[in-house]
């Protein structure tokens, strides 16, 4: 989050912009937990409507707004990208994303064709315009840091994901003829999981792991080759599907192997921290990277091993990877932004970061997160545990939502009642 080329945090958006995106993502997380409680183990059944609803709640409802909010904060600070009117942009993007996601989830559950069409138009326009605006700014950069190049690749992945999703949704809606449905469905999953979610996490981690945890840096060549390799292989895989579907599976397996190696390297970096004690965010990263390794190993094994629960394991583990990193960043970003903006406004009694969200609070959330993971894993053997897993997932997101509300209330209270510093000039 800190720019090292002399660019200013004044270019970062107002705190409300980021908090709104996070709030929407967290609320959808609660919804995901409630869905799991209602649907039970059906959420793991391949193309069942319940599985599609939960998958898109997590990817579009939770991950998308949180990742876009994080980009709104990080692009100005890490890459020096300036948004002219971040509040206006966020107020245009967020309601469209929220309504479009609800429409799509309803479409999956009810099967009503016009809902697919309406959702695809709204979401397609919102995401393509957002990604396009960010990419245009990034392409103008003269020099790319360790994260900005990977962000370009991830936003490229988002654009491709959205285009493919448009076709799929319009096929469901009866507008497109669906001839390429099977090929593009595989591509949709690949671009979504690897080309957008994993790739953006990888890109951001190249900067934040070293910065937050005082670790050795990632190898510079890796920060270029890995994002390029992942997106390139996904594109090659899509082309190969047209030749022979099995070849696409191999391309995806290579992506999985690359991500496995990245996960292992990140765990190694985290073990090289100077500080002996790990806070909750370090543990969220560790859980996330371990889950990534489990997921990608399962995915890479699937073409060669006919084991029925491998697919479910890969799904649970990948979700754990993504959500763990979300929470790791949440417990850094929210206290920092609250503290920084109040200090920047000159408030003498701005709360310290640990007063915004106490480290013990984050640790308690980690325990709930791990309990949810355990419950989801037990569903592999005892599907009835899905109901408990859903409850714990809702609790996990509910807890984070409450912390965000408390941070916002503290911020607002300080603005209303806090005392400001006198500057040196005014004291003279």
């Amino acid at each position, binding site marked *: 989050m800190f720019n090292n080329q*002399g660019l200013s945090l004044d270019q970062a958006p107002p705190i409300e912009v980021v908090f709104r995106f996070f709030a929407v993502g967290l609320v959808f997380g609660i919804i995901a937990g409630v869905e799991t409680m209602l649907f039970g183990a059906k959420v793991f059944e391949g193309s069942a409507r319940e599985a599609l609803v939960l998958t898109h709640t997590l990817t579009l409802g939770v991950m998308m707004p949180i990742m876009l909010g994080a980009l709104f904060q990080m692009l100005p600070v890490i890459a020096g990208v300036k948004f002219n009117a971040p509040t206006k942009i966020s107020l245009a993007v967020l309601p469209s994303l929220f309504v479009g996601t609800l429409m799509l989830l309803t479409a999956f559950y009810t099967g009503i064709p016009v809902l697919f069409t309406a959702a695809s138009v709204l979401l397609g326009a919102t995401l393509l315009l957002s990604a396009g605006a960010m990419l245009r700014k990034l392409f103008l950069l003269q020099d790319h840091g360790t994260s900005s190049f990977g962000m370009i690749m991830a936003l490229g992945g988002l654009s491709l994901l959205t285009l493919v999703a448009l076709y799929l949704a319009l096929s469901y809606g009866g507008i497109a003829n669906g001839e390429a449905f099977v090929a593009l469905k595989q591509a949709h999953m690949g671009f979504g999981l690897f080309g957008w979610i994993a790739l953006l996490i990888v890109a951001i981690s190249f900067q934040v792991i070293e910065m937050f945890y005082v670790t050795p840096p990632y190898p510079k060549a890796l920060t270029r080759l890995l994002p390029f390799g992942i997106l390139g292989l996904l594109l090659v895989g899509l082309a190969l599907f047209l030749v022979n579907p099995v070849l696409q599976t191999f391309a995806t397996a290579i992506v999985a192997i690359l991500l496995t190696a990245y996960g292992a390297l990140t765990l190694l970096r985290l073990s090289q921290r*100077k500080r002996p004690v790990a806070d909750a965010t370090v543990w969220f990263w560790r859980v996330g990277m371990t889950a990534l390794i489990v997921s990608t190993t399962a995915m890479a094994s699937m073409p060669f091993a006919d084991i029925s629960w491998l697919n479910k394991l890969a799904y649970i583990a990948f979700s754990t990877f993504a959500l763990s990193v979300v929470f790791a960043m949440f417990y850094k970003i929210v206290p920092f932004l609250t503290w920084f903006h109040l200090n920047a406004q000159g408030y003498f009694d701005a709360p310290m970061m640990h007063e915004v969200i106490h480290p013990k609070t984050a640790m308690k959330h980690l325990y709930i997160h791990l309990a949810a993971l355990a419950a989801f894993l037990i569903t592999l053997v005892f599907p009835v545990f899905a109901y408990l897993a859903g409850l714990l997932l809702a609790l996990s997101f509910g807890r984070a939502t409450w912390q965000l509300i408390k941070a916002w209330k503290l911020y607002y209270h300080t603005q209303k009642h806090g005392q400001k510093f006198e*500057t*040196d000039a005014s004291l003279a």
Partner: protein
Amino acid sequence: MSNAEAILFDARELEHPEPLNRAVAILRTLTHDRYLHMIHKKEPIPLLELAQKRGFYTLSKQDDKGVWHIFIARDSLKSLLEKIDV
């Protein structure tokens, strides 16, 4: 001026948010005859911005090993800080 006291703070091994937290706490104690000399692996842009907004003079220098030396003081010590070699 030559009696100015340096408060040395080596933040290189500290994890976020300790460098910021401790540096801001030090800033609150700075008088006209004291300055902060912070040593860090990266240039701490958020700290520099906060200090500037509060009317402090800031100066960042990178030594030949790539380590950053950050000096923050009241304006009265500006000429002293500019003479310091890292």
